[in-house]
């Protein structure tokens, strides 16, 4: 493939040289007109402005002093245009000097919407597309791009990240279209689609992009907009555009920084040392044994592992233009500490954007390079769960302990650590060093060339890359009690190298055909992507034995790759400026599938009608815009398994811990691997209908969308007839799933005048999800397959995927209560009437709610008075059910004492249930998790002049995760777990963060 890059580069270079030669040979005739083009605001000359004779390709470009001169005939109309400024048309008349002042085109940014492989005027959008720019982003100490978008777009659910520094948060656009495959949207950063693969040692791959560098998010929600991305677009597409320099702009330096402190909001309710001594005496079977194990201390283990976390963030950017080359460069440094002791992320980002235009603006390069270096310290989040379980009567340290001086539960017989006992949470953090260093760079060179002999035609070549390297170590102190069993994994290292490359090439033809009052815009192209990853994992003990061998050491190397080759096209047709039609077609080929299933075709069509532009409405002054849209499209999903070769048969060899002995000799076992030669993409068909409107001088605007998405050939891990393949379940294309819903967005300016403005934005989303088919053959008795694994026992699952129900519907026994309303332990509603132990019979389970909200509302508001401003953003989620797994696995008296000889603290929730033994499958633990979360409240003050006219500043104060209103009994009902949605386990709690921000502009 390397060759292709060279080819393309040399091709472009050659093209450039030829064109430079040809352009100088233009023949001059008529009168000479000359002049200077200036910036209307600053009065400074603008170099590189296009001055073209209307209707021809004859023209000139201003020089470094803003001067131009060209030969024209009398009464010629000059078109003077420059990126970022309003285009002017001026009749020369008989003048020989024409000076022009250009004003900034304030509306331009908002008026053009980036779509796949191109952009389109906002008014010409036919699909459900929402662009959010930096003014609308969430405020505060934000280290990951996802947080900017939280609650801002109807139909886009961004879960608040956990408290882990740089932690991930899931994005779901209009619910999930898949069961088994990824439900993450495709994210395209400056034209480079990112892989959804998780990178070892890097919790949130999107954190590569510094949120301060982001200009806009464009969310493509429906298939008519996303189908151009074909096989990866089923879950929507988010296009991230980074900030760029602007032509003619003076150099501007800007500093943005903040200092923040994250504090724990609440702790899990467990017993204090004194209370615990009483509970153990009252609620264990044989207190003579259990009370003997009690210590005399009062240790609040949660307070031992959590801290107030102070973080800082600094960003400097330089923006400007050198001649015809706008640039932007930025450096960001984030030092984010987590609430869990030791957890930390230190990140440096660099970004450079250059957009030189040559040849009178016919040849435009857009170069973006982003680099990131992150040092993570993951601490040991096992301590989160341990801190709520560890016996509060024990002290942290025990001088006599051979395990680093930490109190440890040991086996009475030999003093070795009791490995099923809870580990000392403080030791877990201090005796483990789990760090990683990640280097990642994403970049692209986008070359756009407008053919001089056919200016309607533009050729675009985009070359991009996404390289990452992650090196991690996970070391355990040799004295640590929890390393005692497996010293061979005390020193663990991993090393990941990823190389993804991209080539897009497309032609765009755009022409206004005035004779038939039509505008046509055609794009056709080709895209090639290569994904490569290699990993090395190694483990060994700290010390070698006498022969120099590390007993039990192991190193594995994995390499994998895949290719995606695509052809795509799009036609936009506009008639009379009011009737719009868009059609797209993409043909994708993926190396993941066998030759016969490799190619997929993904069409879409959409129409829109600018009703507001019709003569019968044009006279209605209150109505500024009214547009009706409808679209249909088919998209695919090829992110199916971690295996890039699911259709190819292979064997694997066993590891050194699974060798079989014949005659005393050990043999590596060779196992044929399961495969599915027929595997292919999922296909999602979407219909979407919507209205956009704007009234009262654009003071109130909004949109409404209805959609229905049907996924067929749904990839699912389903049971296969055993005996022919080498697995009992195989991921294959079977089943169907439906999502339907509607969204409303409203945005209003309550007040808008020179001194004061008040803006309110709200969005409402409702999505209903239903499984319509799950198996290859209809089987009325098939109840579905269980999902949603909980903590406690092994493989216990509390949810089910069944036909006719939403995904991950809770599926449990109905608790029976006594007269006082207390649950009766082990007693459930006998649905089948067969008697006996009701929970001994699976058929007694009920379908009970699901973790998806009935509806969600995002709310934000911004108020400004002169230099002061105040804003907030929050989210309301209604009807999301939560399974309180902390209560079900820790609120049990049986947990107090383990027969192997140790005590555990328990959740005080036990007082609500009085359960002795675990009752995991009781619906008692299902709660309504509806909540309103105030994501951020911010106040700021702008200083237009600091020290001198050239310096402006801003100071702001923000509270993130300010408060949450909920009836949920656990810590936080917003669950960020793609595999076990709605199940509240031990998660890194979200802090409340107070942020002081400063901003200087020079």
């Amino acid at each position, binding site marked *: 493939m390397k060759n292709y890059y060279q080819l393309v580069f040399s091709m472009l270079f050659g093209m450039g040289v030829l064109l430079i030669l040809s352009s100088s040979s233009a023949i001059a005739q008529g009168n000479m007109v000359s002049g200077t083009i200036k910036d209307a605001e600053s009065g400074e000359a603008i170099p590189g402005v296009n001055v073209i004779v209307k209707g021809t390709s004859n023209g000139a470009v201003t020089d470094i002093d803003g001067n131009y001169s060209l030969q024209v005939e009398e009464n010629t109309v000059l078109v003077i245009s420059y990126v970022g400024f309003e285009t002017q048309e001026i009749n020369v008349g008989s003048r020989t000097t024409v000076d022009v002042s250009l004003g900034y085109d304030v509306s331009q940014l908002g008026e053009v919407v980036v779509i796949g492989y191109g952009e389109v005027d906002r008014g010409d959008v036919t699909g459900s597309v929402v662009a959010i720019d930096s003014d609308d982003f969430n405020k505060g100490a934000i280290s990951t791009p996802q947080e900017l978008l939280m609650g801002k777009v109807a139909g886009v659910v961004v879960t608040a990240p956990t408290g882990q520094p740089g932690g991930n948060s899931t994005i779901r656009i209009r619910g999930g279209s898949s069961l088994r495959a990824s439900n993450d949207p495709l994210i395209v950063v400056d034209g480079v689609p990112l892989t959804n693969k998780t990178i070892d040692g890097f919790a949130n791959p999107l954190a590569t992009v510094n949120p301060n560098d982001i200009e806009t998010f464009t969310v493509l929600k429906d298939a008519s907009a996303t189908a151009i991305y074909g096989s990866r677009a089923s879950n929507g597409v988010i296009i991230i555009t980074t900030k760029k320099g602007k032509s003619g702009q003076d150099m501007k330096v800007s500093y943005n920084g903040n200092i923040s402190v994250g504090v724990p909001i609440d702790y899990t309710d467990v017993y204090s040392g004194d209370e615990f001594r009483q509970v153990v005496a009252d609620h264990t079977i044989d207190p003579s044994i259990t009370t003997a194990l009690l210590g005399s201390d009062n240790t609040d283990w949660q307070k031992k592992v959590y801290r107030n976390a102070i973080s800082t963030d600094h960003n400097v950017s330089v923006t400007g233009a050198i001649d015809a080359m706008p640039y932007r460069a930025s450096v960001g440094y984030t030092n984010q500490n987590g609430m869990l002791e030791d957890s930390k992320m230190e990140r440096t980002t660099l970004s450079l954007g250059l957009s030189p235009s040559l040849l009178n603006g016919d040849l435009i390069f857009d170069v973006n390079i982003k680099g990131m270096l992150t040092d993570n310290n993951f601490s040991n989040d096992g301590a989160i769960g341990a801190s709520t379980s560890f016996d509060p009567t024990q002290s942290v340290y025990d001088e006599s302990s051979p395990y680093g001086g930490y109190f440890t539960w040991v086996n009475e017989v030999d003093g070795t650590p009791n490995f099923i006992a809870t580990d000392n949470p403080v030791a877990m953090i201090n005796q483990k060093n789990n760090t990683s260093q990640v280097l990642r760079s994403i970049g692209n060179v986008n070359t756009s060339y407008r053919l001089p002999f056919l200016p309607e035609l533009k050729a675009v070549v985009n070359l991009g890359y996404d390289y990452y390297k992650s090196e991690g170590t996970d070391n355990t102190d040799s004295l640590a009690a929890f390393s005692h069993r497996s010293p061979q994994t005390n020193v663990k290292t991993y090393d990941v190298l990823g190389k993804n490359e991209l080539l897009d090439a497309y032609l765009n033809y755009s022409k206004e055909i005035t004779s038939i009052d039509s505008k046509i815009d055609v794009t056709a192209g080709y895209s090639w992507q290569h994904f490569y990853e290699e990993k090395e994992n190694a483990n060994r003990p700290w010390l070698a034995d006498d022969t120099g061998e590390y007993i039990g050491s192991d190193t594995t190397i994995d390499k994998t790759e895949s*290719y995606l080759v695509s052809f795509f096209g799009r036609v936009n047709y506009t008639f009379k400026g009011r009737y719009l039609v868009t059609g797209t077609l993409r043909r994708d080929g993926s190396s993941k599938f066998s030759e016969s299933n490799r190619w997929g075709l993904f069409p879409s069509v959409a129409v829109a009608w600018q009703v507001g532009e019709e003569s019968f409405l044009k006279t209605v002054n209150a109505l500024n815009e009214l547009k009706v849209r409808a679209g249909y499209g088919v998209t695919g999903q090829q992110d199916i398994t971690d295996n890039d070769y699911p259709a190819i048969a292979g064997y694997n060899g066993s590891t050194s811990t699974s060798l079989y002995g014949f005659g005393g000799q050990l043999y590596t076992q*060779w196992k044929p691997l399961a495969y599915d030669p027929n595997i292919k993409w999922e296909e999602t068909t979407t219909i979407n209908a919507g209205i956009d409107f704007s009234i009262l001088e654009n003071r109130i605007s909004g949109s409404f969308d209805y959609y229905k998405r049907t996924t067929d050939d749904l990839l699912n891990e389903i049971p296969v007839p055993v005996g*022919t*393949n080498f697995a*009992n*379940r195989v991921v294959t294309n079977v089943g169907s799933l439906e999502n339907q819903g509607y969204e409303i967005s409203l945005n209003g300016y309550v007040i808008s005048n020179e001194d004061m403005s008040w803006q309110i934005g709200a969005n409402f989303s409702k999505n209903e999800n239903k499984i319509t088919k799950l198996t290859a053959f209809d089987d009325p008795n098939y109840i579905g397959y269980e999902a949603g694994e909980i903590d406690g026992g*092994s493989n*216990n699952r509390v949810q089910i995927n069944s036909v006719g129900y939403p995904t991950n519907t809770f599926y449990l026994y109905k608790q029976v209560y006594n007269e006082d309303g207390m649950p009766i332990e082990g007693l459930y509603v006998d649905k089948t009437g067969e008697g006996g132990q009701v929970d001994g019979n699976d058929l007694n389970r009920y379908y009970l709610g699901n973790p998806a909200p009935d509806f969600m509302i995002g709310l934000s508001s911004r108020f400004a008075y002169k230099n002061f401003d105040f804003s907030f953003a929050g989210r309301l989620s209604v009807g999301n059910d939560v399974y309180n797994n902390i209560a079900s696995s820790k609120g049990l008296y049986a947990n107090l004492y383990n027969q192997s000889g140790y005590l555990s603290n328990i959740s005080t929730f036990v007082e609500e249930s009085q359960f002795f033994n675990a009752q995991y499958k009781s619906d008692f633990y299902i709660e309504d998790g509806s909540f309103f979360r105030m994501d951020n409240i911010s106040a700021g003050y702008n200083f237009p002049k600091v020290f001198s006219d050239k310096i402006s500043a801003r100071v702001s104060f923000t509270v993130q995760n300010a408060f949450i209103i909920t009836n949920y009994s656990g810590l936080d009902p917003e669950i960020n777990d793609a595999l076990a949605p709605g199940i509240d386990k031990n998660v890194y709690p979200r802090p409340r963060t107070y942020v002081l921000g400063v901003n200087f502009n020079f």
Partner: protein
Amino acid sequence: MKNIKYIYIALTAIILTSCVNDLDVSPIDPDSNNASTVFSTEEGTKGALAKIYSSFAYNGQGDGAEEIQGLREDFGNFLRQYFLLQECTTEEAIVAWDDQTIKNFHYHTWQPNDVFNDAVYSRLFFSVALANEFLRNVGNAAVSDEDKVLFAAEARFLRAFAYSIGVDFYGNIPIIDENSSLSDLPVQSTRAEVFSYVETELTEIESLLAAPQTNEYGRVDRTAAWMLLGKLYLNAEVFIGEDRYSDALTYTNQVIGSGYALDPVYENVFKADNNNSPEIIFPLVFNGVHSQSHGTTFIVQSSSGGGLDVANVRGVGGSGWGGFRAVKELPEKFGLTEGDFSLANPLANIADSRALFYFNSNDAWEWSVENVGTFTEGVGVYKYSNLNSDGSQAEYYNPDFVSIDFPVFRLADAYLMYAEIFLRGGGGDANTARGYINDLRQRAYGDASGNITNADLTLDFILEERGREFYWEAQRRTDLIRFGKYSSGSYVWEWKGNSQTGTGFDDYRALFPIPAAQITANPNLLQNDGYTN
């Protein structure tokens, strides 16, 4: 100038066509292999054969990947779930754990969607698929022609072994051989057809297998095939409603005459160095360091706890997982009562050395199981130990994993089979039968004090004696069914039929259900009688 257009178009065309070929990929991983690379060496070929054996013993490849999907890796271990289904459905074992439906086996309330039952069924057919794959490739293997024949016969034995369990557990199942392909939807056979398939296979390979005691340890010889045939015929009345006891006797006699001998010490058959035991005909091989799997490890760890001196009695580190124990009806077969245990003597100490029970009155142990979820109700079993016969530490010692080989077939079984066949009218004579039983009892008692007379020889006695000799060896359910006691209301134990005092349950549960998932996946399958879906 115009040329540039054509150059552009030409270059574009080149790029487009070449890149499409990029879609033809093959794995680039340095460890990736396929059938032709594996069978190109003797070691690889034996490794593929080892995989079929280990499918009955290990969790998987040691990489943590679930070999049986839907359950945690270690839960997909065949021996572990075979033990669960054969023992927890009887008086020999009960489990306190809360893992999904695990308690339902002792309650006899399992349903067709039960995950453990699914795991056993899936694992049996996984083994069948492995054997078939091996048979398709062994012809091209880089081994001698003799080994090709021998290896193929062993693969067929293991497939027949899987089907023999299939006949016992599920009855009507598809027969899938090496001529099947991935796209086939298997067709269900009747229990009689499956029985006949196993019988034919075993008689065909009998002469192809290694002569008795001539194969490497860990691989089967003819004696294993005879033993399996003997057991198949012994149970023929249950399986196909036919009296085949005289056939059973023929093969049982062949087993007894094949040179295997009783281990002088009963306990040593279940120790870490039991690979030296002369009694074991077909072992599943374990190694504490190199097979970190949950076969015999599970049996040891899950029954260690509650104050037991784990290190000195079981030979493993830590304090055990606890959770599995017997209900009181098992120790009572030895005449044991709660009073036989004391604080000073928590280990049973009676003349019959096979009574390897533990009861700790200090640790709140209750003789009777009132609450199934309480670890210390019932009676502990410490039959298997990871110590060597001389009490020393196991060669491949690992505090968490044991090196005890699991005796699938051992000679003592043939002795008791002989006596049973005689009593069921299959031939033989009373004195020989009594002699075989007394051989076992003399080993157990250390002298003749426990010997029986011909008058004691009854079928009821055989069932009790099989309980005493083979408890926790994954035989009990099959035995109880053959003796008509499994679902009977007149032979009960605690929590039988989901009742604390024990009650009968529906006879149809003598067969486990075909897993619901399989019926969904394959419309050719019909559910066993009695199950509702």
